[in-house]
Protein backbone atom coordinates (compact mmCIF):
# COMPACT_ATOMS: atom_id res chain seq x y z
CA UNK A 1 0.00 0.00 0.00
CA UNK A 2 1.33 3.41 -0.94
CA UNK A 3 2.17 5.71 1.96
CA UNK A 4 2.80 8.74 -0.21
CA UNK A 5 1.13 11.88 1.14
CA UNK A 6 1.60 15.63 0.85
CA UNK A 7 4.01 17.44 3.17
CA UNK A 8 1.06 19.29 4.69
CA UNK A 9 -0.73 16.04 5.53
CA UNK A 10 2.40 14.41 6.97
CA UNK A 11 3.30 17.31 9.25
CA UNK A 12 -0.38 17.64 10.19
CA UNK A 13 0.07 14.36 12.12
CA UNK A 14 2.50 15.99 14.56
CA UNK A 15 0.80 17.08 17.79
CA UNK A 16 1.77 19.93 20.10
CA UNK A 17 4.02 18.59 22.86
CA UNK A 18 5.35 15.64 20.84
CA UNK A 19 8.82 14.27 21.58
CA UNK A 20 10.54 14.56 18.23
CA UNK A 21 13.84 13.65 16.55
CA UNK A 22 14.97 14.81 13.12
CA UNK A 23 17.37 12.76 10.99
CA UNK A 24 20.85 13.64 9.75
CA UNK A 25 23.16 15.88 11.72
CA UNK A 26 24.54 19.45 11.68
CA UNK A 27 23.66 20.73 8.18
CA UNK A 28 23.75 17.37 6.43
CA UNK A 29 20.71 15.39 5.22
CA UNK A 30 18.40 17.39 7.49
CA UNK A 31 14.63 17.54 6.93
CA UNK A 32 14.68 21.31 6.43
CA UNK A 33 11.58 21.55 4.23
CA UNK A 34 9.67 19.44 6.77
CA UNK A 35 10.84 21.71 9.62
CA UNK A 36 9.64 24.75 7.66
CA UNK A 37 6.20 23.14 7.36
CA UNK A 38 6.22 22.54 11.15
CA UNK A 39 6.74 26.31 11.51
CA UNK A 40 4.02 27.08 8.93
CA UNK A 41 1.55 24.92 10.83
CA UNK A 42 2.47 26.67 14.09
CA UNK A 43 3.24 23.58 16.19
CA UNK A 44 3.98 24.29 19.85
CA UNK A 45 5.85 22.80 22.83
CA UNK A 46 7.80 20.18 20.92
CA UNK A 47 10.51 18.35 22.88
CA UNK A 48 13.52 18.06 20.63
CA UNK A 49 15.74 15.01 21.05
CA UNK A 50 19.32 14.52 19.89
CA UNK A 51 20.70 17.65 18.32
CA UNK A 52 19.59 21.20 17.62
CA UNK A 53 21.16 22.28 14.36
CA UNK A 54 19.85 23.62 11.07
CA UNK A 55 16.31 22.24 10.74
CA UNK A 56 15.78 22.05 14.51
CA UNK A 57 16.98 25.61 14.94
CA UNK A 58 14.40 26.75 12.36
CA UNK A 59 11.67 25.15 14.51
CA UNK A 60 13.17 26.87 17.60
CA UNK A 61 13.09 30.23 15.78
CA UNK A 62 9.48 29.55 14.78
CA UNK A 63 8.48 29.14 18.43
CA UNK A 64 7.67 25.42 18.06
CA UNK A 65 10.13 24.00 20.62
CA UNK A 66 9.84 24.15 24.43
CA UNK A 67 12.65 21.78 25.42
CA UNK A 68 15.82 20.24 24.05
CA UNK A 69 17.54 17.07 25.25
CA UNK A 70 20.63 16.17 23.32
CA UNK A 71 24.28 16.43 22.46
CA UNK A 72 24.89 19.18 19.90
CA UNK A 73 23.56 22.70 19.40
CA UNK A 74 25.70 24.10 16.62
CA UNK A 75 25.63 24.62 12.86
CA UNK A 76 29.28 23.57 12.73
CA UNK A 77 31.40 25.99 10.71
CA UNK A 78 28.46 28.43 10.65
CA UNK A 79 28.36 28.97 14.40
CA UNK A 80 26.20 27.96 17.35
CA UNK A 81 22.60 27.44 16.19
CA UNK A 82 21.50 31.08 16.34
CA UNK A 83 17.87 30.77 17.45
CA UNK A 84 18.71 28.14 20.04
CA UNK A 85 21.63 30.21 21.35
CA UNK A 86 19.45 33.28 21.76
CA UNK A 87 16.64 31.41 23.51
CA UNK A 88 19.02 29.46 25.75
CA UNK A 89 20.69 32.70 26.84
CA UNK A 90 17.28 34.28 27.50
CA UNK A 91 16.36 31.23 29.57
CA UNK A 92 13.31 30.57 27.39
CA UNK A 93 14.11 26.98 26.32
CA UNK A 94 14.61 23.99 28.63
CA UNK A 95 18.03 22.37 28.04
CA UNK A 96 19.17 18.95 29.15
CA UNK A 97 22.60 18.05 27.80
CA UNK A 98 23.56 14.41 27.35
CA UNK A 99 26.65 12.76 25.81
CA UNK A 100 27.00 11.68 22.19
CA UNK A 101 27.53 8.00 23.09
CA UNK A 102 24.69 8.35 25.65
CA UNK A 103 22.48 9.41 22.77
CA UNK A 104 23.81 6.63 20.52
CA UNK A 105 23.29 3.78 22.92
CA UNK A 106 20.05 5.31 24.20
CA UNK A 107 18.54 5.32 20.73
CA UNK A 108 19.86 1.78 20.13
CA UNK A 109 18.20 0.66 23.38
CA UNK A 110 14.98 2.25 22.12
CA UNK A 111 15.34 0.35 18.87
CA UNK A 112 16.07 -2.90 20.72
CA UNK A 113 13.08 -2.41 23.04
CA UNK A 114 15.22 -2.64 26.19
CA UNK A 115 14.72 -0.15 29.06
CA UNK A 116 18.34 0.88 29.63
CA UNK A 117 21.94 0.21 28.78
CA UNK A 118 25.19 0.79 30.71
CA UNK A 119 28.46 2.55 29.89
CA UNK A 120 31.09 4.86 31.37
CA UNK A 121 30.24 7.54 28.78
CA UNK A 122 29.91 10.64 30.97
CA UNK A 123 31.70 9.61 34.17
CA UNK A 124 33.61 12.54 35.70
CA UNK A 125 31.77 15.24 33.74
CA UNK A 126 29.05 17.83 34.39
CA UNK A 127 26.63 15.85 32.21
CA UNK A 128 25.97 13.92 35.43
CA UNK A 129 25.70 17.07 37.58
CA UNK A 130 22.30 16.85 39.35
CA UNK A 131 22.09 20.68 39.29
CA UNK A 132 21.98 20.56 35.48
CA UNK A 133 19.37 17.80 35.25
CA UNK A 134 16.39 19.33 33.42
CA UNK A 135 14.72 16.10 32.38
CA UNK A 136 11.80 16.90 34.73
CA UNK A 137 11.28 20.19 32.92
CA UNK A 138 11.20 18.43 29.57
CA UNK A 139 8.72 15.86 30.92
CA UNK A 140 6.48 18.66 32.16
CA UNK A 141 5.96 20.04 28.64
CA UNK A 142 5.71 16.69 26.81
CA UNK A 143 2.25 15.64 25.66
CA UNK A 144 3.10 12.05 26.57
CA UNK A 145 5.51 12.39 29.52
CA UNK A 146 5.93 8.60 29.68
CA UNK A 147 7.91 8.76 26.43
CA UNK A 148 10.71 10.42 28.43
CA UNK A 149 12.54 8.52 31.19
CA UNK A 150 11.82 9.24 34.87
CA UNK A 151 15.52 9.62 35.65
CA UNK A 152 18.46 10.92 33.68
CA UNK A 153 20.84 8.15 34.80
CA UNK A 154 21.70 5.80 37.65
CA UNK A 155 25.25 5.05 38.79
CA UNK A 156 26.28 1.54 39.76
CA UNK A 157 29.38 -0.62 40.06
CA UNK A 158 29.90 -2.85 37.04
CA UNK A 159 28.98 -6.31 38.34
CA UNK A 160 30.20 -8.13 35.24
CA UNK A 161 33.63 -6.92 34.11
CA UNK A 162 34.85 -4.76 37.04
CA UNK A 163 34.92 -1.58 34.96
CA UNK A 164 34.27 0.49 38.10
CA UNK A 165 31.39 2.94 38.32
CA UNK A 166 29.19 2.85 35.24
CA UNK A 167 26.17 4.88 34.23
CA UNK A 168 22.82 3.25 33.44
CA UNK A 169 21.38 5.17 30.51
CA UNK A 170 17.64 5.03 29.76
CA UNK A 171 16.37 4.14 26.29
CA UNK A 172 15.44 7.03 24.02
CA UNK A 173 11.83 6.77 22.90
CA UNK A 174 10.06 9.10 20.52
CA UNK A 175 6.61 10.23 19.48
CA UNK A 176 7.81 11.31 16.05
CA UNK A 177 10.89 10.81 13.88
CA UNK A 178 11.29 12.82 10.65
CA UNK A 179 14.05 11.78 8.25
CA UNK A 180 15.11 13.24 4.94
CA UNK A 181 16.75 10.62 2.72
CA UNK A 182 17.92 10.12 -0.84
CA UNK A 183 15.46 7.39 -1.81
CA UNK A 184 12.31 5.80 -0.46
CA UNK A 185 9.96 3.21 -1.94
CA UNK A 186 6.31 4.22 -2.07
CA UNK A 187 5.56 1.77 0.78
CA UNK A 188 8.29 3.32 2.94
CA UNK A 189 11.47 1.28 2.44
CA UNK A 190 14.36 3.72 2.95
CA UNK A 191 17.76 3.85 1.27
CA UNK A 192 20.38 6.26 2.62
CA UNK A 193 23.72 7.20 1.08
CA UNK A 194 26.47 8.68 3.23
CA UNK A 195 26.22 8.81 7.01
CA UNK A 196 23.16 7.09 8.45
CA UNK A 197 23.60 9.27 11.59
CA UNK A 198 20.93 7.93 13.99
CA UNK A 199 18.16 7.48 11.45
CA UNK A 200 18.45 3.67 11.20
CA UNK A 201 17.84 3.34 14.96
CA UNK A 202 15.62 6.35 15.67
CA UNK A 203 13.07 5.43 13.02
CA UNK A 204 12.66 2.08 14.76
CA UNK A 205 12.11 3.62 18.20
CA UNK A 206 9.46 6.17 17.21
CA UNK A 207 5.69 5.84 17.31
CA UNK A 208 5.29 7.79 14.10
CA UNK A 209 7.83 8.06 11.27
CA UNK A 210 7.71 10.61 8.46
CA UNK A 211 10.17 10.17 5.60
CA UNK A 212 10.78 12.95 3.11
CA UNK A 213 12.97 12.04 0.16
CA UNK A 214 14.72 13.38 -2.88
CA UNK A 215 13.15 10.52 -4.85
CA UNK A 216 10.15 8.27 -4.30
CA UNK A 217 10.57 5.08 -6.37
CA UNK A 218 8.44 2.00 -6.99
CA UNK A 219 8.70 -0.33 -4.01
CA UNK A 220 9.60 -3.22 -6.34
CA UNK A 221 12.67 -1.29 -7.50
CA UNK A 222 14.08 -0.58 -4.02
CA UNK A 223 13.45 -4.22 -3.01
CA UNK A 224 15.77 -5.57 -5.69
CA UNK A 225 18.68 -4.99 -3.30
CA UNK A 226 17.33 -5.14 0.28
CA UNK A 227 20.81 -5.27 1.83
CA UNK A 228 21.29 -1.67 0.70
CA UNK A 229 18.17 -0.51 2.54
CA UNK A 230 18.42 1.16 5.95
CA UNK A 231 14.88 1.42 7.36
CA UNK A 232 12.17 -1.17 6.67
CA UNK A 233 8.79 -0.09 5.29
CA UNK A 234 7.18 -1.63 8.40
CA UNK A 235 8.57 1.24 10.51
CA UNK A 236 7.54 4.07 8.20
CA UNK A 237 4.10 5.71 8.33
CA UNK A 238 4.23 8.49 5.74
CA UNK A 239 6.30 9.22 2.67
CA UNK A 240 6.69 12.62 1.00
CA UNK A 241 8.58 13.34 -2.22
CA UNK A 242 10.54 16.52 -1.62
CA UNK A 243 13.42 17.27 -4.00
CA UNK A 244 15.91 19.74 -2.46
CA UNK A 245 14.18 19.03 0.86
CA UNK A 246 17.45 19.42 2.81
CA UNK A 247 18.63 22.68 1.19
CA UNK A 248 20.71 24.65 2.32
CA UNK A 249 22.44 21.58 3.70
CA UNK A 250 24.08 18.68 1.89
CA UNK A 251 22.64 15.42 0.63
CA UNK A 252 25.37 12.96 -0.33
CA UNK A 253 25.23 12.06 -4.05
CA UNK A 254 22.56 14.73 -4.63
CA UNK A 255 23.82 18.19 -3.68
CA UNK A 256 26.40 20.11 -1.72
CA UNK A 257 25.78 22.75 0.91
CA UNK A 258 24.76 26.29 -0.02
CA UNK A 259 27.38 28.19 1.96
CA UNK A 260 26.14 31.77 1.33
CA UNK A 261 22.63 30.72 2.38
CA UNK A 262 23.95 29.15 5.60
CA UNK A 263 26.03 32.24 6.37
CA UNK A 264 23.04 34.46 5.71
CA UNK A 265 20.88 32.31 8.03
CA UNK A 266 23.45 32.61 10.82
CA UNK A 267 23.55 36.38 10.42
CA UNK A 268 19.80 36.91 10.05
CA UNK A 269 18.79 34.88 13.07
CA UNK A 270 20.88 36.69 15.69
CA UNK A 271 17.63 38.41 16.75
CA UNK A 272 14.01 37.20 16.79
CA UNK A 273 13.06 40.07 14.47
CA UNK A 274 15.80 38.87 12.11
CA UNK A 275 14.44 35.33 12.16
CA UNK A 276 10.87 36.56 11.62
CA UNK A 277 11.98 38.55 8.60
CA UNK A 278 13.94 35.56 7.26
CA UNK A 279 10.91 33.31 7.85
CA UNK A 280 8.58 35.74 6.08
CA UNK A 281 10.88 35.56 3.09
CA UNK A 282 11.55 31.80 2.98
CA UNK A 283 8.88 29.97 5.01
CA UNK A 284 5.59 31.86 4.96
CA UNK A 285 4.80 31.69 1.26
CA UNK A 286 1.69 30.58 -0.59
CA UNK A 287 2.85 27.25 -1.99
CA UNK A 288 5.31 26.04 0.63
CA UNK A 289 8.38 24.16 -0.58
CA UNK A 290 7.57 24.77 -4.29
CA UNK A 291 7.77 28.51 -3.75
CA UNK A 292 10.98 28.03 -1.75
CA UNK A 293 12.82 26.23 -4.53
CA UNK A 294 11.44 28.54 -7.19
CA UNK A 295 12.69 31.51 -5.23
CA UNK A 296 16.15 29.91 -5.04
CA UNK A 297 16.05 29.45 -8.79
CA UNK A 298 17.39 26.83 -11.16
CA UNK A 299 20.84 28.35 -11.70
CA UNK A 300 21.61 28.54 -7.99
CA UNK A 301 20.50 24.94 -7.42
CA UNK A 302 22.25 23.63 -10.52
CA UNK A 303 25.61 24.76 -9.12
CA UNK A 304 25.04 22.69 -5.99
CA UNK A 305 24.44 19.38 -7.81
CA UNK A 306 26.83 16.63 -6.70
CA UNK A 307 29.45 15.53 -9.21
CA UNK A 308 29.90 11.76 -9.61
CA UNK A 309 31.73 9.86 -8.25
CA UNK A 310 32.42 12.25 -5.35
CA UNK A 311 28.92 12.77 -4.04
CA UNK A 312 29.64 16.50 -3.56
CA UNK A 313 30.99 19.35 -5.70
CA UNK A 314 34.81 19.26 -5.54
CA UNK A 315 36.47 22.68 -5.39
CA UNK A 316 38.50 21.90 -8.50
CA UNK A 317 35.20 21.38 -10.29
CA UNK A 318 33.82 24.71 -9.22
CA UNK A 319 32.24 23.71 -5.94
CA UNK A 320 31.75 25.36 -2.58
CA UNK A 321 31.97 29.05 -3.19
Amino acid at each position, binding site marked *: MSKVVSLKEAIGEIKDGDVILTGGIVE*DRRPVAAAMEVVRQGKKNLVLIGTCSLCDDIMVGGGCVAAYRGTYTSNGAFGISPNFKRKAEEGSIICDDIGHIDYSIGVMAGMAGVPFIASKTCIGT*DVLNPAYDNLGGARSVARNPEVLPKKKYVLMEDPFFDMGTVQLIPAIKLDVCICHVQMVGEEGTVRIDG*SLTFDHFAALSARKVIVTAEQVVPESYIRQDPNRNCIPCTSVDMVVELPWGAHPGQVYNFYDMD*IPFLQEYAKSCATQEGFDKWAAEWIFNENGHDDYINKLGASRLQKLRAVPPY*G*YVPRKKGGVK
Partner: protein
Amino acid sequence: MTREIAKPGEYSPVEAMVVYAARFLAGFDGKKGLIGTGLPLVATQLAKMTYSPNMIIFVETGQADARPQELPISIMDSRLTYGSSWQMGDPEGLFPLSRNEIDFGFIGGAQIDKYGNVNSTFIGGDYNKPYKRLAGTAGAVDIGVFAKDTVILMAHQKRRIVDFVDYLTTPGWMVKKWPEGTLVRREELGLQGGPSSFISSMGICRFDDTTKIMYLDKYFPGIKPEDVKANTGFDIDVSRATEADPIYTDEIKLLREEIDPLNIYKMR
Protein backbone atom coordinates in the same frame (compact mmCIF):
# COMPACT_ATOMS: atom_id res chain seq x y z
CA MET B 1 66.03 21.55 -0.20
CA THR B 2 66.23 24.38 2.30
CA ARG B 3 62.90 25.49 3.54
CA GLU B 4 62.17 29.17 3.79
CA ILE B 5 61.28 30.38 7.26
CA ALA B 6 58.10 32.42 7.69
CA LYS B 7 58.43 35.28 10.16
CA PRO B 8 55.84 36.11 12.80
CA GLY B 9 53.46 38.58 11.17
CA GLU B 10 53.59 36.68 7.89
CA TYR B 11 51.04 34.28 9.33
CA SER B 12 48.19 34.66 11.78
CA PRO B 13 48.25 33.24 15.35
CA VAL B 14 45.52 30.76 14.34
CA GLU B 15 47.55 29.59 11.34
CA ALA B 16 50.52 29.06 13.67
CA MET B 17 48.35 27.03 16.02
CA VAL B 18 47.16 24.81 13.15
CA VAL B 19 50.69 24.31 11.78
CA TYR B 20 52.11 23.30 15.18
CA ALA B 21 49.15 21.00 15.71
CA ALA B 22 49.80 19.31 12.35
CA ARG B 23 53.46 18.84 13.33
CA PHE B 24 52.40 17.46 16.68
CA LEU B 25 50.28 14.85 14.88
CA ALA B 26 53.49 13.43 13.34
CA GLY B 27 53.70 11.52 16.62
CA PHE B 28 50.50 9.74 15.66
CA ASP B 29 51.47 8.58 12.19
CA GLY B 30 49.97 5.13 11.73
CA LYS B 31 47.76 5.59 14.81
CA LYS B 32 43.99 5.86 15.07
CA GLY B 33 42.49 9.26 15.83
CA LEU B 34 38.94 10.44 16.38
CA ILE B 35 38.82 13.96 15.03
CA GLY B 36 36.44 16.64 16.23
CA THR B 37 34.84 19.39 14.21
CA GLY B 38 36.37 22.80 13.47
CA LEU B 39 40.10 23.56 13.45
CA PRO B 40 41.09 19.97 14.39
CA LEU B 41 39.76 18.96 10.94
CA VAL B 42 42.02 21.59 9.34
CA ALA B 43 45.15 20.55 11.26
CA THR B 44 44.39 16.90 10.48
CA GLN B 45 44.12 17.66 6.77
CA LEU B 46 47.49 19.46 6.88
CA ALA B 47 49.05 16.60 8.86
CA LYS B 48 47.78 13.98 6.38
CA MET B 49 49.39 15.98 3.55
CA THR B 50 52.70 16.43 5.37
CA TYR B 51 53.86 14.92 8.64
CA SER B 52 51.41 12.13 9.34
CA PRO B 53 50.30 10.58 6.04
CA ASN B 54 49.44 7.22 7.60
CA MET B 55 47.28 8.54 10.40
CA ILE B 56 43.94 6.69 10.50
CA ILE B 57 40.96 9.01 10.82
CA PHE B 58 37.71 8.07 12.49
CA VAL B 59 34.83 10.54 12.57
CA GLU B 60 31.87 10.58 14.92
CA THR B 61 29.33 10.52 12.08
CA GLY B 62 30.40 6.99 11.19
CA GLN B 63 33.36 7.06 8.80
CA ALA B 64 36.19 4.57 9.37
CA ASP B 65 39.60 5.45 7.89
CA ALA B 66 38.28 8.60 6.21
CA ARG B 67 40.53 9.97 3.46
CA PRO B 68 39.02 13.30 2.48
CA GLN B 69 40.40 14.69 -0.78
CA GLU B 70 39.63 18.23 0.32
CA LEU B 71 38.97 19.98 3.59
CA PRO B 72 35.63 18.98 5.14
CA ILE B 73 33.43 21.86 6.22
CA SER B 74 31.18 19.84 8.46
CA ILE B 75 31.57 16.78 10.66
CA MET B 76 29.19 14.79 8.44
CA ASP B 77 30.56 16.30 5.26
CA SER B 78 30.22 14.27 2.05
CA ARG B 79 33.97 14.93 1.74
CA LEU B 80 34.49 12.56 4.67
CA THR B 81 32.20 9.89 3.23
CA TYR B 82 33.73 9.58 -0.23
CA GLY B 83 36.85 7.40 -0.04
CA SER B 84 36.29 6.11 3.50
CA SER B 85 36.52 2.39 4.26
CA TRP B 86 33.16 2.16 5.97
CA GLN B 87 30.28 4.59 6.31
CA MET B 88 27.67 3.86 8.93
CA GLY B 89 26.06 6.20 11.47
CA ASP B 90 27.06 8.08 14.62
CA PRO B 91 26.89 5.06 16.96
CA GLU B 92 29.24 3.03 14.76
CA GLY B 93 31.45 6.10 14.41
CA LEU B 94 31.77 6.59 18.17
CA PHE B 95 32.04 3.00 19.37
CA PRO B 96 35.73 2.62 18.43
CA LEU B 97 36.16 4.96 21.43
CA SER B 98 34.25 2.79 23.88
CA ARG B 99 35.94 -0.32 22.44
CA ASN B 100 39.28 1.31 23.42
CA GLU B 101 40.55 1.39 19.84
CA ILE B 102 41.28 5.10 19.63
CA ASP B 103 44.87 6.20 20.26
CA PHE B 104 44.08 9.90 20.34
CA GLY B 105 41.18 12.28 20.22
CA PHE B 106 41.63 15.76 18.79
CA ILE B 107 39.19 18.47 19.87
CA GLY B 108 38.60 22.18 20.12
CA GLY B 109 36.58 23.91 22.82
CA ALA B 110 35.75 27.27 24.35
CA GLN B 111 37.38 27.07 27.77
CA ILE B 112 40.14 24.95 29.32
CA ASP B 113 41.36 24.79 32.90
CA LYS B 114 44.70 24.05 34.53
CA TYR B 115 43.81 20.35 34.78
CA GLY B 116 43.04 20.09 31.06
CA ASN B 117 39.27 19.88 31.57
CA VAL B 118 37.50 21.40 28.57
CA ASN B 119 34.18 23.22 28.41
CA SER B 120 32.16 23.29 25.20
CA THR B 121 28.70 23.57 26.78
CA PHE B 122 28.16 27.02 28.32
CA ILE B 123 29.96 30.02 29.81
CA GLY B 124 28.68 31.69 32.96
CA GLY B 125 27.27 30.66 36.29
CA ASP B 126 23.70 29.73 35.37
CA TYR B 127 23.07 26.68 33.19
CA ASN B 128 19.46 27.75 32.71
CA LYS B 129 20.37 31.26 31.61
CA PRO B 130 23.97 31.08 30.44
CA TYR B 131 26.08 34.10 29.58
CA LYS B 132 27.04 32.21 26.43
CA ARG B 133 25.53 28.98 25.17
CA LEU B 134 27.97 26.78 23.23
CA ALA B 135 27.80 23.64 21.05
CA GLY B 136 27.33 21.00 23.76
CA THR B 137 28.97 17.66 24.35
CA ALA B 138 29.03 16.08 20.86
CA GLY B 139 31.99 13.74 20.77
CA ALA B 140 34.01 15.90 23.15
CA VAL B 141 32.82 14.20 26.32
CA ASP B 142 33.25 10.76 24.74
CA ILE B 143 36.79 11.47 23.50
CA GLY B 144 37.81 12.73 26.93
CA VAL B 145 36.44 9.63 28.64
CA PHE B 146 37.70 6.94 26.27
CA ALA B 147 40.63 8.06 24.07
CA LYS B 148 44.10 6.93 25.15
CA ASP B 149 45.31 10.50 24.64
CA THR B 150 43.51 13.78 24.06
CA VAL B 151 44.97 16.72 22.17
CA ILE B 152 43.22 20.07 22.61
CA LEU B 153 43.35 22.99 20.20
CA MET B 154 42.14 26.44 21.24
CA ALA B 155 43.06 30.11 20.76
CA HIS B 156 45.08 31.48 23.70
CA GLN B 157 43.02 34.09 25.54
CA LYS B 158 43.00 34.91 29.23
CA ARG B 159 39.25 34.35 29.60
CA ARG B 160 39.47 30.92 27.95
CA ILE B 161 42.30 29.44 30.06
CA VAL B 162 41.02 29.37 33.59
CA ASP B 163 41.45 27.91 37.04
CA PHE B 164 38.41 25.66 36.65
CA VAL B 165 35.93 25.32 33.79
CA ASP B 166 32.37 26.68 34.15
CA TYR B 167 31.06 23.32 32.88
CA LEU B 168 33.14 20.17 32.67
CA THR B 169 32.42 18.71 29.23
CA THR B 170 35.65 16.84 28.43
CA PRO B 171 37.31 15.25 31.44
CA GLY B 172 40.97 16.17 31.95
CA TRP B 173 43.10 15.14 34.91
CA MET B 174 40.95 16.27 37.87
CA VAL B 175 37.30 15.38 37.38
CA LYS B 176 34.01 15.25 39.27
CA LYS B 177 32.88 12.21 41.18
CA TRP B 178 29.10 12.07 41.40
CA PRO B 179 26.69 12.29 43.18
CA GLU B 180 28.67 14.76 45.38
CA GLY B 181 30.79 16.30 42.63
CA THR B 182 34.01 15.83 44.61
CA LEU B 183 37.17 16.60 42.62
CA VAL B 184 39.21 13.43 42.11
CA ARG B 185 41.98 12.26 39.81
CA ARG B 186 40.54 10.65 36.69
CA GLU B 187 42.11 7.25 37.36
CA GLU B 188 40.10 7.05 40.59
CA LEU B 189 36.97 6.76 38.41
CA GLY B 190 38.55 4.10 36.23
CA LEU B 191 39.10 6.48 33.32
CA GLN B 192 42.13 5.72 31.16
CA GLY B 193 43.96 8.23 28.97
CA GLY B 194 43.77 11.95 29.66
CA PRO B 195 45.00 15.05 27.82
CA SER B 196 48.72 15.10 27.00
CA SER B 197 48.80 18.48 25.30
CA PHE B 198 47.02 21.75 24.77
CA ILE B 199 48.10 23.54 21.62
CA SER B 200 47.16 27.22 21.64
CA SER B 201 47.82 30.19 19.41
CA MET B 202 50.84 31.09 21.61
CA GLY B 203 52.46 27.79 22.49
CA ILE B 204 52.19 24.17 23.51
CA CYS B 205 51.23 23.33 27.08
CA ARG B 206 51.63 19.99 28.81
CA PHE B 207 50.64 18.61 32.20
CA ASP B 208 53.01 17.96 35.09
CA ASP B 209 53.46 14.24 35.77
CA THR B 210 52.95 14.66 39.52
CA THR B 211 50.57 17.58 40.02
CA LYS B 212 48.74 17.16 36.65
CA ILE B 213 48.70 20.95 36.38
CA MET B 214 49.29 22.62 33.01
CA TYR B 215 52.68 24.20 32.27
CA LEU B 216 54.14 25.89 29.20
CA ASP B 217 56.43 23.58 27.24
CA LYS B 218 56.99 25.55 24.00
CA TYR B 219 56.29 29.12 22.98
CA PHE B 220 55.95 30.11 19.34
CA PRO B 221 58.37 32.47 17.52
CA GLY B 222 57.58 36.09 18.31
CA ILE B 223 55.89 35.14 21.61
CA LYS B 224 57.59 35.54 25.00
CA PRO B 225 56.87 33.33 28.02
CA GLU B 226 55.69 36.49 29.82
CA ASP B 227 53.09 37.03 27.07
CA VAL B 228 51.75 33.54 27.73
CA LYS B 229 51.64 34.24 31.46
CA ALA B 230 49.82 37.53 30.90
CA ASN B 231 47.26 35.82 28.66
CA THR B 232 46.51 32.90 30.95
CA GLY B 233 43.77 33.02 33.56
CA PHE B 234 45.80 31.21 36.23
CA ASP B 235 49.43 31.48 37.32
CA ILE B 236 50.98 29.19 34.72
CA ASP B 237 54.49 27.79 35.16
CA VAL B 238 56.61 28.95 32.21
CA SER B 239 60.00 28.08 33.73
CA ARG B 240 60.44 24.92 31.66
CA ALA B 241 59.52 26.49 28.32
CA THR B 242 61.71 26.73 25.23
CA GLU B 243 61.06 28.37 21.86
CA ALA B 244 59.39 26.21 19.18
CA ASP B 245 61.08 25.62 15.81
CA PRO B 246 60.14 28.25 13.25
CA ILE B 247 57.23 27.98 10.84
CA TYR B 248 58.02 27.42 7.16
CA THR B 249 56.48 29.32 4.28
CA ASP B 250 55.50 26.05 2.56
CA GLU B 251 53.27 25.17 5.52
CA ILE B 252 51.43 28.48 5.32
CA LYS B 253 51.19 28.20 1.54
CA LEU B 254 49.59 24.75 1.83
CA LEU B 255 47.07 26.09 4.34
CA ARG B 256 46.16 29.12 2.25
CA GLU B 257 46.29 27.73 -1.26
CA GLU B 258 45.43 24.04 -0.99
CA ILE B 259 43.56 23.45 2.23
CA ASP B 260 41.34 26.46 2.88
CA PRO B 261 41.63 28.84 -0.07
CA LEU B 262 38.18 30.25 0.66
CA ASN B 263 39.05 30.95 4.29
CA ILE B 264 35.95 29.11 5.47
CA TYR B 265 37.62 28.50 8.83
CA LYS B 266 38.53 32.22 9.19
CA MET B 267 42.17 31.45 9.99
CA ARG B 268 43.46 34.68 8.49
